[in-house]
Structure formats: C-alpha cells, structure tokens
C-alpha cells in the first residue's frame, strides 16, 4: 500500500485541529502508513449479509422523562470555574467570525 504524503498528514491534522511540528508530521506519516497497512487486512474478511455492530449491551431505545433536573449548584460552579475565561457566570470565547 502507498504511503501517506506529507500533504495528506497535514490535511488530517487540520481536520483534527492539531498543531503538529515538522518532526511530528514526518513521524506520523510513516507510522500511520504502517498501521493502515496492518488494519487493511480486514478487507479480506467476507462480511456479505453482516450488519455492523453499534453496541453490545443488547439494549434498545432507553427513554426517560423529558424533565429538567437541577444539578448541584456547587458542582456546577466548580465545573464552570475550570474554564480559562469567565464573565458573569458564562464561559468567554474569542470571536468566531472575523
């Protein structure tokens, strides 16, 4: 199988929102190619008429009442306080549209 090009690796990193160094781009290029060659062996398995598995618990459609549940105030505050920037109890982000 062919090797992933530097350009392809760069494209994947971009999709994944990962900043990679030149060194990392090089290493991942060769390592990912090796792994893809290995997992490529799955093509030889005959799966005609086989449904894909989504989960193994055997459960179907778990419903619950559509009710608002008040979470513990102190826990909610502790969760929000982990954000790097806050204003008036809200998480602050940079502008999305330039």
């Amino acid at each position, binding site marked *: 199988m062919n090797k*992933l090009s530097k350009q392809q*690796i760069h494209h*994947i*990193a971009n*999709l*994944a*929102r*990962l*900043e*990679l160094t030149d060194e*990392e781009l090089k290493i*991942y290029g060769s*390592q*990912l190619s*090796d*792994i*893809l060659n*290995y*997992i490529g*062996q*799955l*093509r030889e*398995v005959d*799966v005609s008429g*086989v*449904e*894909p*598995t*989504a*989960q*193994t*618990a*055997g*459960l179907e459609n*778990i419903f*619950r009442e559509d009710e608002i549940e008040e979470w*513990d105030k102190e*826990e*909610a505050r*502790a*969760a929000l306080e*982990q*954000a*790097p920037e806050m204003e008036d109890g809200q*998480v602050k*982000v*940079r*502008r*999305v549209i*330039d």
Partner: protein
Amino acid sequence: MKLNKLTIKQASELLDKGEITSLELTNACLARIKEIDNKIKACLTVCEKEALAEAEIADKRREKGEKGDLLGIPCLIKDNILTKGIRATAASKILENYVAPFDATVVKKLKEAGAVILGKTNLDEFAHGASTENSAFGPTHNPWDLKRVPGGSSGGSAAAVAADMCLFALGTDTGGSIRCPASFCGVVGLKPSYGRSSRFGLIAMTSSTDVPGPITKTAEDAAIVLSIISGLDKYDATTVETPRISRGEINKSIKGLKIGVPKEYFIEGMEKQVEEAVKAAIAKLKELGGEIIPVSLPHTKYAVPVYYIITPSEISSNLARFDGIKYGLSEKDAQNLAEIYFKSRGKGFGPEAKRRIMLGTYVLSAGYYDAYYLQAQKVRTRIIQEFDRVLSEVDILATPTSPDTAFKIGEKSNDPMQMYLEDIFVSGASLAGLPAISIPCGFIHPVRYEKKKEDNNKENKLRQHSMLNKREKLSNGVNGLPVGLQIIGRRFDEATIMRAAREFEQATEWHKKKPEL
C-alpha cells in the same frame, strides 16, 4: 501483621471483630506509599488528609453497628475516573490542573459503601496504551522488576495492588487495560461485561467498549468490589440491570463446567514459558473437575485490526471536547478561536493521543468511512457471533492474558505496532462486551529478553520446565515474572468466570506471591 498486605476479605473480617480500625489500615497503606512509591511511581495524587478523614468516618459508622464489605477499606482509583474535588489528569498535560467537579458513579458507590480513597493512579495518557509509558508524568515501574513496565493502561492501579499500597484499586478496561497490567503485575483484574458498571464520570476513550472494574489481590475480592460498583445508572443509558451475584454462586465447584480452549490463543511467536504456564493452569482446572474442550475462534486475528480502527475513531470524536475553551490547558498566545484549538491540542496531547486522533480522523474522513470503519464494525459482528456460538457450546474460555510477560521500559515504546499487538488476546472480549478476568497462574524467567538465543535442546527445555514447576529462586535474583490466565465468560455471566477463578485460586498459591521490594 502488615495491615496493608491484607485482602479485602481478611481486613473486613478484622474490622468486623473490632481488632483493627480503618484508620490503622489507612495509615498502613499511606506509609507503604511513602516508603516505596518513589521507586514504583504508581500514584499521581495522594490525598492523605481526605483519606484519614474518610477512615475516621468509616470507623464511626462501624461503631454505630453498621457493617459492609468495603466499609473502611482503603483503595486507589485510576486517574481517568472522576473523584470530586481531587485532581483528575488522565495522565495528560491537557488536564494537568483539572479538578473533578463531581464523582463518577462507580466512585459514588464506593464512597457510599464506605471505601477510603487514598489517591489516584498513573495510566497511559487517556488510557491509550499497554505499558503506562504513555503517561505525560513518566512511567510506572513493575514491582517484580523495576526495569520493566507494569502493563497498561491501568498500570498504576495494578502496580499499587501488587506492592500492597492499597487493598484494591479501580481500573478501566477498553481493550485489555485492566487484564494486561493485572497479568504483568501478578494480581487479579476483572473486566465486567459492557454495561454492568457505569461509565458516568469516566474520561471517555472508546465509549462502545470502556468499562470500569476492580484490580484486587484475590478473585474473591474482585467479586466483592464488583457487587458494589455494578448496577443500572440513569446517567449511563448503556447500563443494564442485572441480578446481584450471590456468594453461593461463586463458591460452587467447577465440576462438570465446560471449559473451551481456543487454539487461536496459542500462537507462533508467543513466549513459550507463558504457553506452558497457561497449559499447566488449564490442566489444573481439569483436575478440579472441569471438562476441557478444544474450540476454534478463527476471527481472533482480526480483533486487533478491528480494535485499532474502532478505538481511534471513537477517540478522535471523544477527545474533540478538549478545545482549550471549557476546561483543561488553554493556550493564551493565540490570535483567534481556531488558533486556540490548534495550539492547545498540539501542546496538550502526547504522542500516542495525537497518533490515535490522527488515525481516527483519517479512517472517518470522507471517502474512507466504508473501507475502514464500516468494514471494522461488520467484522466486529463476525467476532461477536463467533464468541456467542462457541460460548453456547462451552461455559467459559481459558486463554493466556498476554503472549508474554512484562517487557522492559523503552523496549517497545518507539514502535506503536508492536505495542498494539500486546492486545492480541484481550481485545476480542472487549469488542464483544464479554466479561473476562485475569488471574496469576505462574511465574517465569523469560529467556527472550536476556538476549540469549532460543535453545531448542532437550536439556534446556527440561531445565526451564523444572524451574517452572519448582518455582525456585531464579538466577537473576528475581522470583520471575508473573503470568496471567484469562477466563472469558458469557455476557453478564461474571458469576461463572469468578467461580472458576476462585476455585483455581483455592487450589494454587500463585496469588499469594509478593514482589521483594
């Protein structure tokens, strides 16, 4: 009597009789951590103050007449499971300063039962690995040989139990992460059926196979912890209400039990002495009344490739939440929103997490989904069907947990493919959601790692064999490295695998061996 060396069962009996207190037990464990964890590096956080306070509360509860198997029992928790008010890092730089705002359901249940949490244990970053070398905070060392890995990803939990820093620990198993380190450290590790114990409050890796479970000193102890942590949870819609497993069920004899031995789990290239030790253990199960039945699981060889498509796919999705906005590392030096994402993630994730995110992103990307992800989920169905068919003919399966024993730190860390192949015997049960336990079944002195040439002459084989049988003190001053026997059962039939594990344990001494530290 060294209190930290006790099993849960022994300690709770002494607590019941009022011969010891939880405070004494907790102090003994904390002292052990202080004494040896600078060598083992199993703990990422030790919460001494909180633990001592919990121990005092447990003692008061007992004074008032309350009883319980875990009331006052000290434990450690893998650091990808949330414990309220305590740092939870998942061994990643991106969560280095993250403090858990709430308790995971399994932790909540342990606390209600009165267990005392001593601290949090090391793991491969986000549980990605089989050696604990992928931790952003440095590797954990195997108590049986400090130059070797403890296995992973729950390596800190397994090493801590093996070195008696606690009475039990919690781990998580996604594709072998409880069983592999249990096997490498000579302790018991139980991966429950998917859905038996809640994932709520676990830092998600592969949501379709993640499951929390106990790492203990005996199979009996594993049953005790499982009974506390399992059950339906409204915060995890994949949990299943299952009847409680009674002690009577586990204590039953294995006479007449049908034990399948799949030939695909004894393969070319595996450590010969591991194979011998596991075969000796299977012979023991036969001696105890089990009926040994050769079976075949031809799709076994596809479990690792399926696992390494599904797992990175789910990881690329689950780790998308680490964006430098809501919590975790946030790179300040960024011009715009996109740059915050790129820089925070680039800086915060370690090499294996990045590798898996990249792999998952690739196999899910436009044009590749059918070839990789969909095909993998179909082969997964084949693997499940095959397990279910064989397990309708036999009651349990007995296999090695790992093809080898603990390897040296650094030996495989530069070759991800080599590391992935460590999962060869453990990923199948994960993909199929089946319960599986690893228990100690022997100690060997691996020849391979000493760079000695494989010697096929008869005399040498005999010598190795006698070493195996007599368990004599081995030449390099180490009592050898532990080997794990894996027992896989039917979905939600933990009772039968624990029954076999317990009876094997009663008939052998392997689980009583302790590393010299």
